[in-house]
């Protein structure tokens, strides 16, 4: 049922039409810019070279309407080639569309298939384009791995397109040069090496899955056989493939099938959050958590980790250990499973002493699951842990079941250390850097920026004029993936296409073009490169048809390689074990630092993305910066002022910090020091200090400037992921670390309702048994329900509702950003978040429960509940928030005067008020200056935002959604623009038939669409076929604060955990439930008197019955 919903999602989109056959033959990929082009006059060539590059590099004036229309119409030409608008080629772009591109209806959004390249993978997408400007990214439902879901980074990546701080010019030694000059210089640099076969020429690349790039690399390698190739990524997710290839003796890449796994052991592997293609993993994992009735089985997740990740939050059992001890735990588990087949492991296993029973019982459970078990090792862990994981999987018979290996391209030979060496020795004369920002993110011991200066030529293609820009001799602005052609492979090897939706806004250049120019290809246009690559990948036949289908679908069917049989040799493991030097463990005043990929800014590449900066970390809820995370015990050992004289339980609630601020400490390791604030994080392994990468940039845009602390300064190439032996010194200073959720305990309230699987089986309707009024069956409302008193006001066709399955939700934040992108939700800046004014319509509440050292986490997406009997509506003095006949709680921004009474009266506090004109506030005002006044003096309507910044950000807006001004209240609308769009389409379709009910699966809200776990489900509760109605009928369904009798249309499905009885940390109930029962509430698993769930009370509570 769940699977069927999404493919239908875009039934109405023009994507579904197969391109019509071409009436006249096409002559290659050319798209004319003018008739002069045909003439190939020198003026034309000059003009081509100047038009975009120079125009763009001088593009410091606002994106005027004229310029924009120009860019836009050029983009249409591109799309025309893409196959959507047929094969007609409109000639020169003329401002008014005297001849419309085919299929173009002004104001109607169009969807194009493309993909976002992500490290060694690619995420297939369907991108919405409004009048030529991309405005919203969705997952491509054609891609079986994602089924329409995506992740937060992808959702936010559209904002990078309109980033006013992106690189916009070609530069030589930091000074602007014309584009042709820059290309000439590139040619001359390359020409120097043509004689000696590339001796002294080095390439530094980020991992990529693009076959085109691989092909060009091969061409260049043939031309310059002596050139060296280096791969660099601060968060190297390629290790999975490298280690697997090494162990298997052939280039392979592991593909984990979380949907098939019944028992999963994660060895420091945050596969739901920061590993490759986490949205695919979430999709698979949540499949195993879906529970329809008491007969269902659930998967079970064991997590061994130092950080508290969202994987740990989703785990049924979590063991916090130091990162250096994960190998020990892995070896202990392996010894239990391999039963002495690998005696050498004892040496590794000695690294961990502690919860023996946890390990043995976990191993027993894995053994019992056999081939349905899966052990995964995290990218931070050393090779030995990965090999142990593979060995266990092999021993359990999981290889080929829950984990498969597919052929992968051989990884690049060199790494950053090699390049640093050759630079230092002067062997490397010229470096070509594509994308990476090594001057910022390289290990500190390499002193990479200094090394780079030793090269005579540093050519770089970069998205920002960042730290590395400062040391380049020749810099090209990089094109956004929505501006250029490309290709890639997803995590399972499926080939995907990248097609542009817009002409480069600032003359950005793709990496394919740079490589093609270096390779000296006939045509260096990415379009040609990608086409030519595809020619080698599809079977002989009608290439045009395959090409069109490829571009149109975005994915090449059946292009995923077949899994290969792989034997992980025991010898490799033995070697690794033999080489394994047990790390010195932290203790005393020696702490262990973990460097981790940030949930918001990744490794720093999204540092200037306001949406991501303002996305709360899913665990800490910190925004706009990173902090040194320590466990409560460690905080006490450090005698932090926050920790002094505090009940440890208080650490679950950051509100101590809100009042007192956070201690600033100096962190020192190996002579390198940084200072920053300490954040007490319950559940973190003791003696650990977690430090997110990606902040503390010295040269970035106006959004990222000044945000956080640079962890790279402590990172060395010897210990890039965790380092033992850090020392902490207090500085005595106090700063405020800003988070969006100040109180982390649920206070025993039945907000998130959880049970263990066995408890659920015993009493499937326990969740409703936790309602305050469950014990008072006759306590009914005094007043009639508004729909009962006025039944004519209620639509018989549509009643919208939402169900959120807390069992599936892992708290990945994708919905938060999707909502922000869809609904033009502004960012407000750190200072405003500090004042509690974040604007997110959809937030994810995170609660800790249980012992502060080993808490459980529960997540709950919280947005407008669309109460039928809404408390906000009755208090608004001007009728600005009212109810419609389809059950929506409507907010009329035009009518709002901003009394904020509705927000006060909302029990869920989901309404958001525009305290300032956030859309007009310059980004520079987003900073926190520590003064009592709200940010630097904001001059109100007199203040002017820089036109470029302002206009660009306007381009990212969804034209179907009002941009709210200051002084008005706003909140989740259930994406009313999508509802109305679907209704209009259905009405058009229905015609005289009168069948105006929007069929299930036609559309959904932004949050539901993006959710890889399919935890959020939206639909028409009057529709018998709707999934939302089915979910609302389930016995786990409950209303948050239902006793207020507001009849929320958003309901939640209680979370079911699946712990193992035999484990030492097993508790009879989930910890939130224990706290609930401890709060003098009766156990919801025991039957009450017959009245408790009297038939009279129950249907009234079940929203499935037509809405109330």
């Amino acid at each position, binding site marked *: 049922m769940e699977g069927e919903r999404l493919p239908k999602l875009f039934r109405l989109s023009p994507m579904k039409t197969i391109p019509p056959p071409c009436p006249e033959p096409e002559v290659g990929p050319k798209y004319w810019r003018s008739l002069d082009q045909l003439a190939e006059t020198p003026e034309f060539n000059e003009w081509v070279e100047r038009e975009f590059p120079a125009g763009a590099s001088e593009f410091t004036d606002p994106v005027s309407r004229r310029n924009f229309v120009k860019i836009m119409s050029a983009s249409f030409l591109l799309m025309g080639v893409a196959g959507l608008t047929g094969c007609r080629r409109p000639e020169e772009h003329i401002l008014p569309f005297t001849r419309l591109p085919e299929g173009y209806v002004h104001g109607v959004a169009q969807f194009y298939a493309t993909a976002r390249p992500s490290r060694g993978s690619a995420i297939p997408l369907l991108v919405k384009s409004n009048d030529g400007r991309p405005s919203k990214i969705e997952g491509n439902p054609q891609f079986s791995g994602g089924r329409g879901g995506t992740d937060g980074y992808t959702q936010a990546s559209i904002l990078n397109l309109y980033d006013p701080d992106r690189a916009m010019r070609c530069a030589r030694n930091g000074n602007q040069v014309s584009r042709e000059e820059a290309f000439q210089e590139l040619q001359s640099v390359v020409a120097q090496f043509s004689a000696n076969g590339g001796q002294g020429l080095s390439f530094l690349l980020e991992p990529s899955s693009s076959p085109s790039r691989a092909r060009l690399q091969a061409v260049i390698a043939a031309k310059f056989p002596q050139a060296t190739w280096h791969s660099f990524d601060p968060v190297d997710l390629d290790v999975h493939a490298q280690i697997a290839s090494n162990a298997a003796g052939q280039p392979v890449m592991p593909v984990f099938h979380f949907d098939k796994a019944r028992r999963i052991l994660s060895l420091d592997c945050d596969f739901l959050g920061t590993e490759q293609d986490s949205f695919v993993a979430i999709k698979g994992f949540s499949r195993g958590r879906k529970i329809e009735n008491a007969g269902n089985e659930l998967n079970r997740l064991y997590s061994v980790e130092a950080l508290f990740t969202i994987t740990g939050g989703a785990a049924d059992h979590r063991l916090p250990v130091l990162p250096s001890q994960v190998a020990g735990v892995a070896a202990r588990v392996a010894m239990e499973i391999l039963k002495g087949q690998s005696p050498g492991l004892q040496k590794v296993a000695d690294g961990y002493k502690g919860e023996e029973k946890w390990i043995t019982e976990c191993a027993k459970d894995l053994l019992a699951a056999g081939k349905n078990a899966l052990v995964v090792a995290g990218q931070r862990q050393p090779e030995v842990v990965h090999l142990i994981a593979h060995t266990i999987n092999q021993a359990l018979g999981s290889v080929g079941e829950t984990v498969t290996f597919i052929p992968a391209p051989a990884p690049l030979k060199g790494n950053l250390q090699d390049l640093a060496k050759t630079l230092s020795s002067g062997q490397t004369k010229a470096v070509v850097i594509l994308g990476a920002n090594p001057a910022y993110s390289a290990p500190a011991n390499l002193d990479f920026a200094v090394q780079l200066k030793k090269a005579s030529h540093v050519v770089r293609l970069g998205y920002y004029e960042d730290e590395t820009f400062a040391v380049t001799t020749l810099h090209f602005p990089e094109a956004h993936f929505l501006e250029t052609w490309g290709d890639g492979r997803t995590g399972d090897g499926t080939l995907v296409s990248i097609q542009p939706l817009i002409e480069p806004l600032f003359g950005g250049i793709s990496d394919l073009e740079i490589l093609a120019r270096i390779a000296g290809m006939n045509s260096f246009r990415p379009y040609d490169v990608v086409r030519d690559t595809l020619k080698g990948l599809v079977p002989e036949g009608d290439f045009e048809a395959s090409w069109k289908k490829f571009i149109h679908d975005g994915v090449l069917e059946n292009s995923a390689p077949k899994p290969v049989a792989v034997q992980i040799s025991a010898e490799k493991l033995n070697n690794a074990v033999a080489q394994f030097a047990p790390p010195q463990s932290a203790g005393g005043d020696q702490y262990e630092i973990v460097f981790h990929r940030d949930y918001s800014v990744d490794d720093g590449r999204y540092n200037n993305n306001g949406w991501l900066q303002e996305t709360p970390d899913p665990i800490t809820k910190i925004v706009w910066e990173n902090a040194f995370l320590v466990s409560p015990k460690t905080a006490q050992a450090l005698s932090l002022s926050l920790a002094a004289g505090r009940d440890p339980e208080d650490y679950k609630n950051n*509100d101590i910090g*809100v*009042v007192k601020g956070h201690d600033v400490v100096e962190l020192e390791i190996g002579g390198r020091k940084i200072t920053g604030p300490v954040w007490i994080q319950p559940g973190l392994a003791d003696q650990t200090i977690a430090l997110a990468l990606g902040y503390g940039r010295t040269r970035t845009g106006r959004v990222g400037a000044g945000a956080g602390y640079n962890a790279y300064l402590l990172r060395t190439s010897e210990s890039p992921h965790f380092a033992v032996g850090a020392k902490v010194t207090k500085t005595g200073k106090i700063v405020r670390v800003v988070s969006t*959720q*100040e*109180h*982390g*305990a649920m*206070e025993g*309230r039945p*907000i998130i309702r959880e049970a263990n699987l066995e408890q659920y089986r015993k009493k499937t309707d326990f969740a409703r048994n936790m309602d*305050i009024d469950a014990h008072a069956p006759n306590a009914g409302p005094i007043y009639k329900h508004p729909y009962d008193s006025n039944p004519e006001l209620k639509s018989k066709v549509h009643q919208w509702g939402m169900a959120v399955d807390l069992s599936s939700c892992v708290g990945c934040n994708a919905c938060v950003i999707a909502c922000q992108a869809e609904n033009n939700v502004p960012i407000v800046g750190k200072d*405003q978040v500090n*004042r*509690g*004014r974040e604007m997110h319509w959809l*937030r994810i*509440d*995170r*609660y800790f429960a249980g012992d502060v050292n080993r808490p459980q986490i529960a997540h*709950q997406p*919280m947005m407008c509940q669309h109460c039928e009997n809404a408390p906000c509506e*009755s*208090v*608004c*003095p*001007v*009728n600005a928030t009212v109810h419609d006949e389809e059950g929506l709680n409507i907010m009329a921004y035009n*009518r*709002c*005067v*901003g*009394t*904020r*009474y509705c*927000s*006060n*009266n909302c*029990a*869920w*506090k989901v*309404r958001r*008020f*525009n*305290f*300032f*004109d956030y859309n007009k506030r310059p980004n520079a005002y987003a900073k926190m200056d520590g003064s009592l*006044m*709200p940010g630097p003096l*904001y*001059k109100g*309507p*007199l203040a002017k935002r820089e036109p470029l910044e302002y206009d660009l950000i306007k381009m990212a807006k969804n034209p179907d959604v009002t941009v709210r001004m*200051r*002084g*008005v*209240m706003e909140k989740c609308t259930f994406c009313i623009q999508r509802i109305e769009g679907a209704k209009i389409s259905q009405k058009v379709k229905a015609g005289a038939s009168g069948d105006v009910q929007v069929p299930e699966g036609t559309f959904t809200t932004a949050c539901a669409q993006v959710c890889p776990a399919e935890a959020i489900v939206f639909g028409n509760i009057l529709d018998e076929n709707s999934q939302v109605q089915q979910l609302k009928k389930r016995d786990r369904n409950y209303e*948050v*604060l239902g006793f207020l009798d507001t009849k929320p249309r958003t309901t939640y499905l209680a979370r079911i955990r699946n712990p193992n009885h035999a484990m030492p940390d097993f508790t009879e109930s989930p910890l939130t439930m224990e706290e609930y029962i401890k*709060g003098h509430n009766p156990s919801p698993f025991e039957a009450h008197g017959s009245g408790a769930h009297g038939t009279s009370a129950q249907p009234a509570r079940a929203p499935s019955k037509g809405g109330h």
Partner: protein
Amino acid sequence: MAEATHNLKVQPPPRELEREPLVLNGRSLGWISDRVAGIIEGPTPKWWWAAFVPSVLVMTLCFTMIAYLISTGIGVWGLNQPVGWAWDITNFVFWIGIGHAGTLISAILFLLRQKWRTSINRAAEAMTLFAVACAGIFPMIHVGRIWFAWWLFPIPNSNSIWPQFRSPLLWDVFAVSTYGTVSLLFWYVGLIPDLATMRDRATTRARKFLYGLFALGWTGANRHWSNYEKAYLILAGVSTPLVLSVHSIVSFDFAVSQVPGWHTTIFPPYFVAGAIFSGFGMVLTLLIPLRKVCRLEDVITLRHIELMGKVILATGSIVGYAYGMEFFIAWYGGNPYERYAFENRAFGPYWWSYWIMITCNVVTPHLFWFKWVRRNMVVVFIISIFVNIGMWFERFVIIVTSLHRDYLPSSWGYFMPSPVDILTFVGSFGLFFTLFLLFMRFLPMVAISEVKGVTPQADPHHPLGGAKEGHH
């Protein structure tokens, strides 16, 4: 006849039954006119300038802050999510509460024939008006888009959109504007005979003209007096329910909502009692220094002060009872959210504000059980300040501590005022004092005609009565 009366020996009542006179030292009617009118007619005292100039400066500060607020956005205040109202509505309720004493004194005490009201009612009513003016500012400027604030009024428009009559905020608009209008009328009607006195005493043409204009041709004719008395009685009758309704309706802003800590049925009577409590507190704060500097001790006597002290004691006890009852109901009602709200009030992050409130509103008024306290002007003045502080904190406690932690702990927050919050509130005192100082300099701050009416001389049967000496 007059002769006979004169010779009749009236036995004075025993000393313990003797009422303290309302005007001391047997001051003559002429003295009363001269003394009260003298405040206006004499040269401007130095202390007046010393008070007026700072008041105007502080008032300017208020309007500067409001200009900054309106030009920039509500964000210049410390409000946030979840605390959507804080100092704005606290100040509103605080000022509107203060505005309760005047009309209570003029109307309810008039209907109850409490003659002691006469020497303080004029100043108290003026205070009411100015307090209502200060109160009116806050709900107006607290809205996000002040330029659309008129949408709260039921003005027919082309879109046929009416205000939402279910919203207590709308009721507020009606309640406060009605109260303000009636109070103004009542005050003005009471002023008419005194304005005529001022006209008659005027020495400059401008004064003669202006007082004459507002005296509406008052001649003191019997018919005038007769109409005046009727009008005054009717207005007193109209005002009386308003005294009770305004603050009841203001309390509905909270009671009608579903916020734990707001949603209680006890609010209307409790708010009215609190309003009277705070109003009398402010009357005392104003009159104790004024009677000194204007040398009105014989008119606003210790007895007056003492009586007001008793009112404060009574209403303070009601308020204290209400505080206790709220806690009892929170426990007895069995609603965990409600229970938490009250625990949090007393022991949560804002515990200090709660205990300031208890100290000022519940503990200090009980000093008025002691007569020497009631008659010690310094102590009474200090207690009156405590009452003002306590009542401001009462509103702060109700509004902020209830909002900052309600149903979902995830949205709990903390409110801290911004400098603009503080300066706007301080500035509103500037407005209040500026208006009051102007009032006392240009209008008789004691109701001359009414005070005369309660002197023994005004009683024709009194040995001194019959207006045998002095003049009106």
